[in-house]
């Protein structure tokens, strides 16, 4: 309770003693940290607890009252076939999209780490998928993959690979819709991963590669034996950002396919939204969201582990 009094003294009293107090790092440090921590506890910590509270209850958006129903909500969730599709999709989409990103981001990071004329423009264009708000870039995909007016349909038609008049419904066929959602997620997370890898590549001392070359190692041997191991920690960071973005995505699916055709491309984020907001079942929506938690926790642990031995880089 003495804290407010101390603070008031500091502000009003401009004596040597007050300065001394502001200079006292054990007071000033926590004081400067507290607004951020209070904000995060109130608007991330508390809601996170509430997600678990809802998931063990029968809460709806319509009413303030709810009672606890134990594991009933989870049982309903697990029995829901759409939920199972969403859970599987979330994992599969994330793995596929990030495998693509690992390969392509390494190549892109490599070519971008060199200096060349027009680099600024190339970087601007290559970064567009990451810099554009996802809701708007998903709209450009929606138009690009339009069943009637997609330019790809026209090209395929001209090449006589499809019959004119029976266009490919890119978002209307199960496999193509899945490929489109995976593609959109890979496309939008690729630039950040490439940029992070580029930074990692430029931080590798050139002497290491020069020495390996003197020792007779070819390009690919140097790439896999020298560059890749040094790049691994930063690659981890790049991919973890992509995992979080893809695993917790809702907007890409919501705008591109609305989870369809049917429920083929539903993911945890979108299904939680449809159930919790549009369906009005807070409890069920929360229970669906909670299944993201184990993966996010894993990501956290990986990140923290990496962080604890990062001083090698």
């Amino acid at each position, binding site marked *: 309770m003495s804290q407010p009094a101390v603070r008031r003294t500091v502000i009003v009293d401009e004596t040597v003693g007050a300065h001394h107090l*502001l*200079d006292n*790092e054990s007071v000033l*440090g*926590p004081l*400067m*940290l507290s*607004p*951020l*921590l209070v*904000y*995060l506890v109130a*608007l*991330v*910590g508390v*809601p*996170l607890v*509430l*997600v678990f509270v809802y998931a063990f209850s029968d809460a709806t958006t319509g009413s303030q009252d709810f009672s606890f129903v134990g594991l009933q909500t989870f049982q309903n969730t697990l029995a829901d076939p759409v939920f199972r599709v969403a859970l599987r999709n979330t994992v599969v989409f994330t793995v596929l999209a990030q495998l693509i990103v690992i390969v392509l981001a390494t190549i*892109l990071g*490599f*070519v971008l780490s*060199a200096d*060349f004329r027009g680099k600024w423009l190339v970087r601007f*264009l*290559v*970064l567009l998928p990451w*810099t554009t*708000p996802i*809701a*708007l870039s998903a*709209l*450009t995909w929606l*138009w*690009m993959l*339009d069943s009637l*007016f997609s*330019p790809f349909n*026209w090209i395929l038609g001209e090449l006589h690979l499809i019959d004119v008049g029976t266009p490919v419904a890119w978002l209307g066929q199960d496999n193509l819709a899945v490929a489109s959602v995976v593609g959109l997620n890979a*496309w939008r997370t690729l630039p950040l991963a490439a*940029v992070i890898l*580029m930074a*990692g590549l430029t931080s590798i001392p050139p002497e290491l*590669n*020069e020495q390996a070359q003197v020792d007779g190692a070819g*390009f690919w041997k140097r790439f896999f034996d020298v560059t890749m191991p040094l790049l691994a920690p*930063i690659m981890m*960071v790049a991919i973890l950002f992509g995992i979080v973005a893809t695993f*917790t995505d*809702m907007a890409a699916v919501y705008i591109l396919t609305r989870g369809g055709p049917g429920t083929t491309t539903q993911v945890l*984020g979108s299904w939680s*939204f449809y159930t*919790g*907001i549009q369906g009005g079942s*807070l409890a069920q929506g929360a229970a669906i969201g*909670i299944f993201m938690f184990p993966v*996010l926790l894993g990501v*956290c642990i990986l990140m923290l582990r990496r962080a*604890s031995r*990062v001083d090698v880089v």
Partner: protein
Amino acid sequence: MVARSPLVPLSRWAVLVVFVVLAAFPFAWAAFTMFKDDGDLYTVGHVPFLYNSPPTFSHVKVLFTDTAFLTFVRNSVEIGVIVVAITLAISVPAAYAIARLTGQWGGRIAMTVFVFYLVPPTLLFLPLSRIVADLGLQDTIWSLVLVYPTLTAPFSTWLLVGFFRSIPRDIEEQAMVDGYSRAGALVRTVLPLSVPGLFTVVIFTFAFTMNDFIYAVAFISSSDNMTVSAGVPTELIRGDVFFWQSLMAAAVLVAIPVALAYNFFLDRFVQGLSLGAVKG
């Protein structure tokens, strides 16, 4: 190292062209579409890569005159500016404390802040929509002003810790020897030296608020209060009727300035990312 790779300039350009096409094609296609005349656009059999009728500005004009697009833009800018102010107000002191004052446990606090960053909106939007409703803020831009700093402050703090750490301690210590308090030294020496870092935080905070979709569609229901991200895909599509040229114009007109802003600050952003709190 790169110079000695087998990627001779020609093949490097080939690779770059492939990536540029992959990344930018949807936007190029959108930019091409936005000037198309209805008759040209919606005729199956027209070569889609040509203007079969003269290009027209009329759909771009429609976006500005007959839709709520400008309202969305104004809302997004207002929200962005206020959230930037809140984010700086809570991140700057926190980052300085982590970088300079808290010693060993500063690293642990930085970790905690980072863990908060990993809790996704797709998990929190349900309880937050209830909290927002309880505060009477549902369907106002203030609901987003309240919630967006949870997305931006952890990341900004993380970047700022990196920037503050890269400033030599001697500079503040000299200021303190000259009679300034710790806080005075922060304001008079560290902040002026961190201006580029602060600009980076401003730009990325603003961009993060533009990027959100789920909170905006969960909290806001009336077109008057929507942001660009939520409003364009939900309000400009009426039922099954898509005004494709106007939609594509909206996407392109937002994408380009945002991408320019990112590009000016990208190097510092990446530097901050690798210098940041995770480096412990």
